[in-house]
């Protein structure tokens, strides 16, 4: 940290032109260090590139496709409903990706906030223990966590009087909520740490106890700061949900592969279908990521 600061100061002294850039980069680095993650920096031109890529893929596939078979574009149109919501128009395919991301975010957030608060506890064992849990799940590969949960978890839970089946997608929810939990835990800790120490001191000097200080003064101020990184983590999670296709969960990637298989695994269809899948994910994530950037700008003024 001190190394960065020295570098920043020398910039200021010798290259005044770079000052705004240096300041911007430094504050960005500080935000990312506090939140322990990179920020998705989507720009409007990314949407244009995405669309052009798709058009290119379709165009080149149309040119390559044999005349006697169904054209790639027609095949895509035929299979799109299947990829989006499954064979019966139910909640599988891409809609299952959204469902998994929604529940994983819900559980991950609840557990993550609790874990994050434990990380700022005054009790050393609680602080240390929650730190270890956070670091363990934050630094484990998501796919390994997913595999572990999906293979270890029983397919049904017998409570004696009732047997609760646990479908694969629910296991995937649990598998994804673990890394989300750990990262939200860091978001909470980072937000608390980012408040100036004067807030704690003035609360202390007004005879607030620690619980009152935390709930009435510190956390309400952290709430706004936590929303943009929280949305950012949702986007990352939503993009990661196709990982569970490896375990056969009936989500968009699994169905895309099935659709391609049904079309006889024609090689020219492959890029069209997968880039289309990419486009769907982009269309879903892009507005959310843009929204998070806007919120951040709005909240940044008040910091």
């Amino acid at each position, binding site marked *: 940290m001190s190394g960065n600061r020295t570098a920043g100061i020398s910039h200021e002294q010798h290259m005044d032109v770079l000052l705004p850039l240096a300041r911007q980069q430094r504050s960005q680095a500080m935000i990312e260090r506090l939140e322990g993650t990179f920020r998705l920096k989507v720009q409007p031109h990314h949407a244009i590139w995405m669309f052009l890529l798709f058009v290119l893929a379709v165009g080149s596939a149309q040119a390559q496709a044999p005349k006697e078979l169904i054209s790639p574009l027609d095949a895509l149109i035929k299979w799109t409903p299947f990829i989006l919501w499954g064979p019966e128009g139910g909640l599988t395919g891409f809609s299952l990706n959204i469902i998994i991301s929604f529940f994983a975010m819900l559980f991950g957030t609840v557990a993550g906030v609790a874990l994050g608060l434990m990380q700022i506890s005054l009790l050393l064992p609680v602080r240390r223990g929650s730190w270890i849990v956070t670091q363990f799940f934050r630094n484990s590969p998501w796919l390994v966590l997913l595999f572990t949960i999906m293979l270890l978890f029983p397919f049904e839970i017998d409570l004696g009087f009732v047997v609760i089946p646990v479908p694969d997608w629910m296991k995937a929810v649990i598998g994804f909520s673990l890394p989300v939990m750990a990262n939200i835990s860091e978001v909470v800790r980072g937000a608390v740490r980012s408040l100036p120490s004067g*807030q704690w001191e003035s609360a*202390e*000097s*007004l*005879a*607030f106890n620690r619980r009152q200080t935390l709930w*009435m003064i510190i956390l309400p*101020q952290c709430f706004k700061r936590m929303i943009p990184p929280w949305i950012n983590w949702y986007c990352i999670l939503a993009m990661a949900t196709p990982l569970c296709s490896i375990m056969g969960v009936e989500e968009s990637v699994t169905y895309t592969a099935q659709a391609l298989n049904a079309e006889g695994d024609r090689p020219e269809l492959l890029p069209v279908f997968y880039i289309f899948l990419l486009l769907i994910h982009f269309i879903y994530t892009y507005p959310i990521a843009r929204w998070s950037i806007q919120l951040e700008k709005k909240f940044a003024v008040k910091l």
Partner: protein
Amino acid sequence: MASPKQSGNGSGTKWTPKQPMVSVKDLHKSFGDLEVLKGVSMDVMKGECVCIIGPSGSGKSTLIRCVNALNDIQSGSILVEGQEVNDPNLDKLELRKKVGMVFQQYNLFPHKTAIENIMMAPITVLKQDKDEVAEYAKKLIKKVRLEGKENSYPGELSGGQQQRVAIARSLAMTPDVMLFDEVTAALDPETVKEVLVTIQDLAEEGMTCILVTHEMGFAKEVANHIYFTDFGLIVEHGPPSTFFKNAKDPRTKEFLSQIL
């Protein structure tokens, strides 16, 4: 006025207003290897206004932060109304109900309006009735000359206004002693005066005030007693009349010649 607590008061004698309200004896404080206070002693009587002056880094702020236990100390004694602050069993919350503090950076709660900032502690900490607190808070707003700004958020107020809200917020706890830690150092020259006038009003009403300050004019006019610190020691002290005219120590003379 609040009755002094007996626990930790070695002698067991009850504090009376004839004894110093704040009594610091041979106070030592280090941050790691750096010794910031090297045996400081001072007495502040009830109703007195005391200014602590001295070059930056001489330990002035640390000294008053020790008085309300924001910093712990290595050795020595601090008695606040007879209550020993350097006591592991000290009830910090009880101490801080008696000792108010105002900071250089105001430290208002930015998510609350001015009046909410003032009302929060009496309601939450002292469990006082909401309506009574609201009424008292309005009086305080008037006292610090901020009528009409009750519902402004700190971000909408100027530095001087924020600092006056901070003073009112501290007063809402009805403290017996007020500590001011360089409260005008972050303000524009024009707004310094409005804050100093507020503090002067308080001092004239008989509030016991301890100020760390660079405002020599204020010290001359309002303070009953001035302490000059340098390198973690109190070099010289006395009432303003003798302190400013007949400083004896060469360090005091040099400091005053630079400032005045």
